Every structure is written in C-alpha cells, then in structure tokens.
C-alpha cells in the first residue's frame, strides 16, 4: 500500500497526462472560491455538490440538461479517484446528476484525498460491491477529446473542454 501523498502525486501525474488540472483545497468553501473565481457566471452544481456547498445553481428538475447546457463552470463530486490513471469515478444515476459533468464548459470535480485509491482494480472492486452505484457510473479521465480529424488531438468536444479536480484534505 502506498502512502496518501504518493497516491496524490501519482493521481496528479495521471490527470495531467490526460490534460486535466488539479487544485488542492482545504475545505468546501475553498472549492467554491475556486469555482466562482473562474467566471462571472454563477457556477451550476450537481445535487451531490449542493449538499456539501449549500450554494450554486442546481439543474432544473424537469429538464435538467437543457437548463445548464454550455454553462461556463459546474461543480460535481466524485465518489473516488484512481491514482494509476488520474480518473475520478462519478456515480450519477439520473440525468439531473449527470447534467453538470455532461454539458458544462469547465468541470470541477471535488474528491476527498482519502478516497484516492491506488489503481483501477481497486476502483472496480469497489464498483462491483455497490450494485446500485453501477446503475450509471463513469470513470472520467480528463476533459472530453477527439482526434477524429487527421488525428489532431482536440480537447473539448461534446463534453467539458476543461476539467479541474479539487482534492480535499
């Protein structure tokens, strides 16, 4: 078992290789400060993030995706992160849970430092033991991308074009 600081360092490397960014935050207030500093718009937040932050704009109940499409900054929460790959695991059973990570331009994902597991095998071990989590679970590794036109890597296609992981703790 590697130490917490090793896991954070590994995670940072993996995330950077996937064109993601990392900020270390000491509190949820810190995460919020970081989000609001990015744009003049109020950040939109997922229901899970709202529980922690108690502020920000939630997606609409009836038409969640349309209501937040292409907003500048969104905040959501990861259940765990994987040091090996620089990924975060998002458990998002409903479209309303998913809206933020699907359609905001700059996605901020908050995760507790102690929830960074060493490798993908550990991540899947967790998932396999949580039947309800696998209803709709996604390991996200950096912002969306394509190389479909002449193999030219372009960051930001149909999902976020920037992704920051806020590591708490």
């Amino acid at each position, binding site marked *: 078992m590697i130490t917490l600081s090793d896991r954070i360092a590994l995670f940072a490397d993996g995330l950077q290789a996937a064109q993601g960014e990392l900020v270390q935050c000491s509190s949820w207030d810190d995460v919020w400060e970081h989000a609001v500093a990015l744009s003049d718009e109020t950040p939109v937040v997922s229901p899970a993030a709202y529980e922690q932050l108690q502020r920000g704009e939630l997606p609409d109940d009836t038409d969640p995706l349309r209501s937040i499409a292409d907003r500048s900054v969104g905040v959501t929460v990861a259940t765990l992160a994987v040091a090996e790959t620089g990924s975060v695991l998002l458990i998002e059973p*409903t*479209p309303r849970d*998913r809206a933020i990570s699907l359609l905001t331009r700059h996605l901020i994902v908050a995760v507790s430092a102690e929830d960074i597991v060493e490798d993908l095998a550990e991540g*899947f071990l967790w998932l396999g033991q949580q039947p309800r989590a696998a209803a709709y679970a*996604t390991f996200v590794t950096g912002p969306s*991308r394509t190389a479909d036109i002449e*193999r030219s890597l372009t960051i930001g*296609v149909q*999902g976020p074009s920037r992704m920051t992981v806020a590591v708490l703790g």
Partner: protein
Amino acid sequence: MSASTAPFKTRYRRSLSDPDLKPRLLDFQRSWRESRDAQVQRLEQRTEQSFDELRRDFAAVKDSTLERLDDYIAEFRANAEAAGATVVELSTAAEAVNYIAAVCKSRGIDLVVKSKSMVSEEIELNHELEQRGITAIETDLGEWLLQLAEERPSHLVMPAIHQKRQYVAEILGEELGREFDPDDIPAMVASARDGLRRHYLSAGAGLTGANALVAETGSIMVVTNEGNMRLATSLPDVHFVTAGIEKLIPSWADAERQLQLLPRSATAQTLSTYTTCITGAQPGKEMHIILLDNGRRAMRETNTIGDALRCIRCGACANVCPPYQIVGGHTFGHIYTGAIGLVNTTFHHGVEEAAGPQGLCVSCGACQTVCPVDIPLPQQILEVRHRAHEGGHAPLWERIALRLWARPRLFHHLMGLAAAGSGLARLIGLVQRDHLRLPLPRRLGWRSVPAMPLRSGQTLIRSRRPLSHLWESSSAGQTVDLFAQCLADRLLPTAVDSAARLIEAGGSSVNVPQSQHCCGLPAFDAGDWETARRMAKHTIEALEGSERQIVTTAPSCVISMQDHWPRLFDHDPEWRDRAAAVSERIHDLAEWLDGPGRLPDGCLSKGSSKSWTAHRFCQASNRNDAGARIDQLVERLTGETAKLLEEPEVCCGFGGLTSLAAPEVGEGILERKLACVAESGCDTLITNNPGCVIHLRAGANASGTHHETLHYAEFLAARLPKNP
C-alpha cells in the same frame, strides 16, 4: 456507390489514387507504435508482468467465457432484466434491424442518436432504418463525418482516418451551411457540439455499442472519448445496445483486465476519457440489449478461427500492418478492417466479401505481436484464404503458376530455359548489374527482373572441392543435409554455396540431397493446400530416410515445415509423422551458426564494405525465432557493428505472391523499407530470407540506389580466410 461500398477492385484502385493516404497512414502507424510501446512498457513495469503474460491471462478469461457462453448469457440476462432491461438474443442482422425498427415504430420514434457501435455498422443499421422511415444520426465525430460522406469506417477506432481536413471542411460546410477553414480543426470539432445538439434533444432513442457485457451484474461497459455516448444515453427515453455475444465477460475484475489492454492498444491512452458502466433501465426509461450472433457461433465452432472471438476491437492489428498503410481500411477489409477484418468478414458478411483483400496480406505476422488478446491472426488469414481458394476466388494466373511450380522437373526445365535466356541477354547487352533491361509496364517497373545465373546453387557446391574445416563446432565431423530452397537455388546460387562453406568451416560435411525442390510454401500461402500438399510430400521424400540435421538458407521454409506442414497433414497421420520426422531436423542457417554449427566470435575478417545494416526477415522476427536477429550474428562473427536501421522487422514488401497479386502494395512497402535503408547511410544491406534478398535487390536496382543487397551467408562467406 461510395468509395467504401464499391467492389473490391474499384476500392483498391481508388485507395491508390489518393496520394496523401500512404504518407498519412505511415505517420499514424509510426506515432501509434511509439506511444503504444511506451504505454505497454509502463504497464509491464507497474504490473511486473510482461505484455505476453497480461494478454494471455485476459485471453484465457475470454476463452473460458466463450466455452460456457450460454451460461454467461443466461446470467447476464437474469441480472440485466432484474435491473429493468430487456435482453434479446438474435441470430441475424435482419432480425436485429427488425427488432430495433419495431420498438421504434411502436413508440412512435423516428429519430435515433447513435454512439459509435461496430455491430451497428456490421448490420448496416443506418441504411436499413432509413428504408423503414427512421433516421439514425451518428454522434461520434468520426462516424458523423462518415455518415455525411456516405462512407464506411476505414479503421475500427479511428473511423475517418482516411479523410483529409479539406474534405472534412467541405462536408461539414455543406451540412451546416457555413464555411470552414480546413486548417482550423478546433473550429470544425466545435461545430459537432452545435451541429449535433438539436438531434440529441429531439431523438426518441439513443443507441450504443458495448465494449463488455458484465455477467455478474448484467451491466454494459462502454469506452469513449468525446462525451457523446453519455449524452445519447441521457436525453432520449429509450436506450438500445447492440453488442456481439462475444462481448460477455464474467466480472468487473475481468472488465478491469480488459481495460488494462484496450485503451493502451487502441489509442495508446492509459484510460479513455469516459469509461461508462450502465446497469439496467434508468428510472422511467427503457433499455433494450440486443445480443447478436450473426455468424459468431459458427466462428466458435470453426477450427483455428474460434480464437478470433476474443477480439476487443482495438484496431492494433491495422496499426502495424504494412499493406494497411498502403491501401487503408476501405480496401484492407470490408466493414471490419485490418487483419481481424480479413478473418471475421467471412462469418459476418460471407466469403465473397472476404475474398478480395485476402491477397493483400503479406503474412508478416506483425498483427499478432501487438494483439492484446493474442489472436493467431496470421494463421487464421491463411485459413480464410484457403476457403476463398476452395470457393474458386483465386486468380487464374496464380493457379497456373502454382501448378507449374508444383512439378519439379518441369520447373527445373523452365528455370534452365530462363538461365539460358538470361545468358543470351547478357551476350547482347540486355543485362545491367545482374538485372534484365526490359521495358516493363508501369505497374511492375518498380522492380527489375533479375537475370538468372547459369549455374544453380546445388551445381556450385557439387562442382567444387569441400572446404577443409577451420573450426571445431559441436557438429564437427557430422554430415549435414543442405536444403537449398527453390528460389535461392536458382536466383541466389552464391548464397546457397556460401551457406555450405560456412557449415563446412565449422567442421561438418555438406550433402545436397537429390531431387529437392519446394516445401510448398507459395501454394500454402495462396490457399491452394492441395498443391501445397503435393509439393510438401515431394520435399519430405527428398529429405527423409536419414538422421542427418538439415540446414537451409531460407527461414521461411523452416516456418513452412514447422507451422504449415502439421496443418496440411492434419487428417493424414502417416504423412503427419513423416513430415514431423523431417521438420524436427530442420535448422535455419543463422540458428545453426549460433548453435550446433557455432562459429567462434570474431573468426571472420573484416570485409571491404564500409558500412552495413540488416533487414530482419519479418515473419521470423515476429515469431521470435532464434536466428532472426542476423545483425547480432554478423556482429559476433565479424566484430563489425551494424548501422542502425529504423523498423528492421517491418516487412520489405515481398510477401510471397502479394507483390505479384497486388504490385502496388509490394511497391509501397518496399519504398518504406528503402527509405529506411537510405537513411541508415549504409553501403551494404544484408537480410536473411532469399525472397527478401531478391525483392530488395531488384527494387534497389530499379530505383537506381547504390547500396549492395546480400544474403548474410554471402556477406559472411566472403570473409572466410582465403588460403587456410
């Protein structure tokens, strides 16, 4: 008819007419290779297991799942249905299309947004739905571009890799009614976000494929990069999944093993951007999982082909395939492209569709070396070729040539005539640098025709006195049989004689068995196993009845005897045993000179060439044969260091009959090789398989390059002490 759905010959011509395709795919293959290798190396370090161990472990998972497929399907179905999904097992493409159309009709759905799914390509879903009044829109950028251009994917993972940005700008401009700057790729990519959004919002159903179906929970796992798959499964009320039955895996732990190999082999990513796991229907929505057979069970029951069902659709086999680099996926394959496409097309789309591209494969074996599930693709392609041949798909000239080749005496007389003709040509000045100055048609002019020497290799050996032995190898005092190889004997007689000298120098005597001819490889390669059997039997008769070790200058014949003979005599125990008694004794010369006939380090004097480099015969290298690294042998014996050759193990383009059946492919691959040779700056190129020597020499001659091409036996024998 679009570029990708025309008959094979038309597709072949069209792919050659695009001057940018070859360099673009070359650039792609090289950069993929570099980043994939780095990824695999990191994976090996992290797991402390070799790539071979990792891929065999996962292949074993796939194999055991396929063996008990019905049990796993039942488990998957029970779990997925408990989570609210509908699971249907369907046998044919038509059934799958009809099912999807019926669900759409009954729900009043006329628009389906699609995430990338090769199975939906396999069943030509978009076209079929359109016939039924339902529109399907591709949302993966590459697939969308193909749909706008009315094309098929030319690569399993990079479907639009053949399209130029100028062309992309044109079709996007037409679709979206605005101008695009071809050099502004980000703007074109951004247009997908805007151009596709309205479709997501109005579609009644979303369709995805699945990279894995996890039995223990009834879940699907899908690996993507753009974010479109999650949108297509979040907005519409109905989710269709189209997946082949071979995508079943038992558990999440197995899913993780698959992910160690899939993104690294596909796009050289540690992990793709989105790995999405969905279990059952979402609240208030429907999920229909279509498990498609469409020839898969027949594949499983077919000897030597069943392993192809391990395929996880990474596309790596295309990324190292030399002929794929020349013609691209619209020609090298049907709907499935690359080496795997040459195999599975027969079962999904019929042998007619599979037959065309068979002749493009050079049998170099590179595909299997990178396959993350270790599919024996080279052997499988030969099996499919055999089926195509049985189905009457072989060209007439090829059938005639092989029949002639199979008759040793006739072949001998024809070669004698050719030698006499070459002699005459020499007299009247039609031979220059050992090649005929013939006006050749443009398709063939990239390679000169070698002038045939008057005396064969066997004649050279018999007409001189044996060398007195110079060194005591462990085989000193033994008599060794030399198998000259039919091509080398007539076209590279000095290589054959040089091999004999090197064996003699190690203290053995050389015997050249009478009536030896051809091991059957050309016919086997062409799928004509009947003729191959006849040739193999002739060779077995010529070489059996002694305990002597057999040495050959041709590693391809060693592979033929060791790998192909057992397949040829699979149902004939008598000949199988006789074949084995011969192939047990066969040695490639390079392996001999390091093994039983080992010559001492530094025993050969430095020669006249200022610098040399080595092309390693691809098939032997990719098979990891002892002796494939001839540069190391030559360095050991001469103390001379080889110059660096880039891609020393990539095929030279000879490819047996390929360079005759598809000369432009042979030419293109040769160009790639000769460019590397030129870059090495050497003045002598050595290689180990006679076919490669002849091909590389004739190609260099036609292109007017000035390095010398030698079989390494010639290179080494020229350095033997002159007057021992």
